[in-house]
């Protein structure tokens, strides 16, 4: 075994984390190698000193302070839950309102685009062609100024009948 391999295993060896055969190999090497033995001793001593570091004891108020923190955290969690609910409620309402507006707008647009046949449509052109005379006379009526020619208007139907005969 080389020193490089041994040094990599020294920590696990010192902590009793090696299998028996491996442990025996390391032990054999350490017993014969002054350099690896020194490294092991240094590590072991440093770890023993580290383990002798002081421990803290919980203060008398530790439990009470914990309970206070816990209640605070629970209250915050509850508030956050409610806040989340509220945050979801408003966007949902806004979405419904926006949807309703969109539907209303669409209906309005559709209605405005569906118009009765105009004068330019083939059906109305045919209708005008068939009743050209009648329309011309209506145009006359339409151009009358007030009721000056009321007699003509009243006799208009008779005149039309004569004309058609």
């Amino acid at each position, binding site marked *: 075994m080389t020193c490089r391999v041994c040094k990599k295993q020294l*920590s696990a060896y010192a902590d009793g984390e090696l299998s028996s055969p491996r442990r025996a190999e390391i032990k054999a090497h350490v017993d014969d190698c002054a350099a690896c033995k020194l490294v092991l001793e240094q590590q072991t*001593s*440093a770890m023993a000193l580290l383990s002798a570091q002081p421990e*803290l004891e*919980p203060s008398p108020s*530790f439990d009470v*302070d914990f309970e206070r923190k816990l209640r605070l*955290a629970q209250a915050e969690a509850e508030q956050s839950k409610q806040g989340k609910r509220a945050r979801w409620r408003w966007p949902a309402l806004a979405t419904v309102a926006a949807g309703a507006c969109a539907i209303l707008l669409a209906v309005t647009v559709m209605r405005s685009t569906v118009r009765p046949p105009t004068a330019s449509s083939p059906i109305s052109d045919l209708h005008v062609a068939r009743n050209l005379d009648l329309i011309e006379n209506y145009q006359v009526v339409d151009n009358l100024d007030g009721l000056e020619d009321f007699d003509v208007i009243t006799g208009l139907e008779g005149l039309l009948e004569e004309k058609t005969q």
Partner: protein
Amino acid sequence: MIFALQIVAQLLGFGGVSIFASATPQRQNAGSVHSGDEDADAQLMLGFQKGQRSCFDQLFQKYKRPVINFAYRFTGRQDRAEELAQEIFVKCFSAKESYRPEAKFSTWLFRIARNHCLNEVRKPEYRHQVSEYSEQEKVSPIASKAVTPEAALAARELQRALRVALSALPERQRTALILSRFHHMSYDEIAATMKVSLSAVKSLLNRAKEFMVTEVQKHGVRHDL
């Protein structure tokens, strides 16, 4: 080569430290929780999941000291250790549903503790913490055993050097070392807590120990005592 730690320790008459210290780890430190209790812990946690608050209280009483000390070692802040521990227990309380009985309770608890402390030490105020908070630390057993003022001073220097070295360790190495030395976890338990492989734990601990030896020698352990 003179090994400074050994000289200081021998001068202090600290019996637990010797140049020929046993390679077998010493696992009698206070604040640890033995793995034999894990079944009982899991049962308590399951009881808590079913709504029995008293089960949580038992776990809290059992683990509060180890968690306070974990936070202290990890952050190097004695003044924050209790607050951090309380926050960790609040997290455990709130995250009770995430516990699975297949895992050891201590593994689950210390994973939460580690993540919480990791977030803590990432705060800017932790950049120069070691020199700032060194004055208020607790006196170690080594210092209290010192018989002369010089020995007491040397012990305080050693204590500070160890704390500085621990704080200076990269986070993963520090976690592995704390769990190993102060909480007496096996390599398997450390691997489960840190969610790394067993070989990674071996490597982390080996590097951590090498670093500790080097850093302790660097940080004010006096050779002339």
